[in-house]
């Protein structure tokens, strides 16, 4: 199968959807001639024109709010927030408006809005351009949260997001934009709430999502050489959360490590652990459920510091060994 990048896969999904549904409009800062801060929308202005690919002033509240209103009035807007950190500027529109409009008006409105935003650290862009904020939104009923880890998933999940009748926060992984992978041509979609098993194993299960999935796979390969067989679960969407897959993996392996880049305290990992201990999987556990997550700190500028506060492959491998009672 042909390989394309994560960024290209996103562009392909959005472009294919825009070709087949002219109620989709695409709104954001510097998405036109510039092609977006990460080049995702390169060429889209030329294909779809300025009526559908709309550059905006630097006005995040207006961008998201405009998406909410346009969705309530019959369009299917896709809005881009240049860095997910800037969602904080538009927080009212995301949390109090988009996520509430259906419920508070008794189901009269749908808000088929997609908010695309790049997430994560690793670029040396420091505190205000590196956060992983998914937990804020997972904690907000009414909005779905998607965290694709591969180009193929990015395409299939974005299609589902665009076709969904609800607001969807589509958190793209900055460091994956240039990563290539096999992506089917043409139309397909991936349902929300279905985790993927990226590697099978029986000794220990790792539950992760987003760019950390790749590191979990690397760590699994490292410890495989030492005889530890790791099952790697990629959640793909955090809201809805595939609790069945988490419970199944915990029962199968008896040992679970949860990995995410976002800081640990108050993170999605806590919900994953709770899902396990709150289910019959509890009785299958051979060890405490562990977390390997970002430290509870803003992301620093200096590269060594930046690397030191988010999970690295070696640290994940070490945590796997620890869970399995091995010393390195």
């Amino acid at each position, binding site marked *: 199968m042909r390989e394309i990048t994560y960024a290209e896969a996103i562009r392909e999904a959005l472009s294919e959807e825009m070709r087949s549904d002219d109620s989709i409009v695409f709104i954001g800062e510097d998405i036109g001639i510039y092609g977006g801060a990460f080049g995702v929308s390169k060429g889209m202005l030329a294909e779809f024109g300025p009526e559908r690919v709309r550059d905006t002033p630097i*006005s995040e509240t207006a961008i998201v709010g405009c998406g909410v209103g346009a969705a309530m009035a019959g369009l299917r807007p896709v809005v881009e927030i240049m860095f997910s950190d800037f969602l904080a500027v538009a927080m009212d529109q995301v949390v109090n408006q988009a996520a509430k409009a259906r419920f508070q008006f008794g189901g009269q409105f749908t808000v088929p809005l997609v908010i695309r935003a790049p997430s994560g650290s690793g670029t*040396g862009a420091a505190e205000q351009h590196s956060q992983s904020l998914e937990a804020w939104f997972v904690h907000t009923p009414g909005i779905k949260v998607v965290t694709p880890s591969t180009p193929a998933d990015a395409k299939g999940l974005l299609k589902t997001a665009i076709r969904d009748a609800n607001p969807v926060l589509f958190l793209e992984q900055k460091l994956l934009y240039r990563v290539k992978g096999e992506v089917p041509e043409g139309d397909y979609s991936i349902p929300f709430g279905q985790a993927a098993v990226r590697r099978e194993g029986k000794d220990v299960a790792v539950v992760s999502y987003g760019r950390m999935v790749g590191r979990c796979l690397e760590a699994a390969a490292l410890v495989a050489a030492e005889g530890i067989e790791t099952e790697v679960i990629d959640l793909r969407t955090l809201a809805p959360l595939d609790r069945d897959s988490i419970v199944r993996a915990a029962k199968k392996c008896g040992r679970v490590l949860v990995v995410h880049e976002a800081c640990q305290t108050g993170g999605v990992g806590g919900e994953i652990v709770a899902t396990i201990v709150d289910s019959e999987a509890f009785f299958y556990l051979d060890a405490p459920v562990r977390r390997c997550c970002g430290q509870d700190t*803003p992301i620093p500028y200096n590269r060594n510091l930046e690397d030191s506060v988010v999970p690295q492959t070696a640290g994940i491998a070490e945590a796997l060994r620890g869970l399995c009672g091995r010393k390195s």
Partner: protein
Amino acid sequence: MTITREKLGELYLKMAQTRRFEETAARLFTEGKVHGTAHFCIGEEATGVGVCSALAKEDLIAQTHRGHNQAIGKGMSLDLMMAEFLGKEAGYCHGRGGCMHIADSSSGSLGANGIVGGGIPIAVGAAFALRYRKVDAVTVCFFGDGATNEGAFHEALNLASVWKLPILFVCVNNYYAMSTHIGSHMNIEDISIRAKAYGIRGEAMDGNDVAAIYEATLEAKEYVKREGPMLLVLNTYRIMGHSKSDPQNYRSKEEVEGWKKRDPILLFRKQLAEAHGFSPAELDALDEAASADVARAVEFAEASPEPRVEDALRDVYAV
């Protein structure tokens, strides 16, 4: 008003230092010595240098992401700026912030902001605190043309106006917000008319004339202390790309070349020679001094240690 010869030399030197600092920073990028990004103000040196050179130490500034000129204008150390740029412990923010977040509490910088418009309400709060504490000082808040489209700008100007705070809002209008020309991000040509909506004074002027900016700031300082907020718009141009990764496919080479002829450093050099009797040798000496200062800053930064990983969680909270 006449500016002293010494002050004229200082304005020139600071602009030359800013230029050299950024040219050197750009080179360090290409040498792979920097992890991150930077926003250069080449072509806009006169704005931050002119304004900040008119300020006293107690006056506060809120900087932008494109603020090396603001920092140098306020008297910040090239050594500590360069060390911050290279992420070193000796840097202003101990390598935690990088050049998008340079701050120096001791020289009155409340910090540069990575969130467009994020610093504007903060500056209003600082201006309020100074007045409340009966400190005879002003606050100067920098932001770009693009930032005036954020809600934070409008809320902050209105609040400053109703509280009649001693704050000077300085809009560095370089006609672009990333790739977006001002003509498509606002429907007015003169940003200073936004002041009208908040009942405050608004003025626009050439942002490449450092001496005129310096003088205008001296006057504005007195005005804001007496009458409350003012919006000063400095019209200039960003010669470099928006950040280090910018295809610059949104503007023409001719446009950039046209503005290069209005390079604020060249203009000032000419002015100093023709109207103030600076000799070519004197001006060259200032250029050389700027280069030597920056070279020393690089040496200092490269020789200083990396932050220690054990200290990664320091300063998440004050103790």
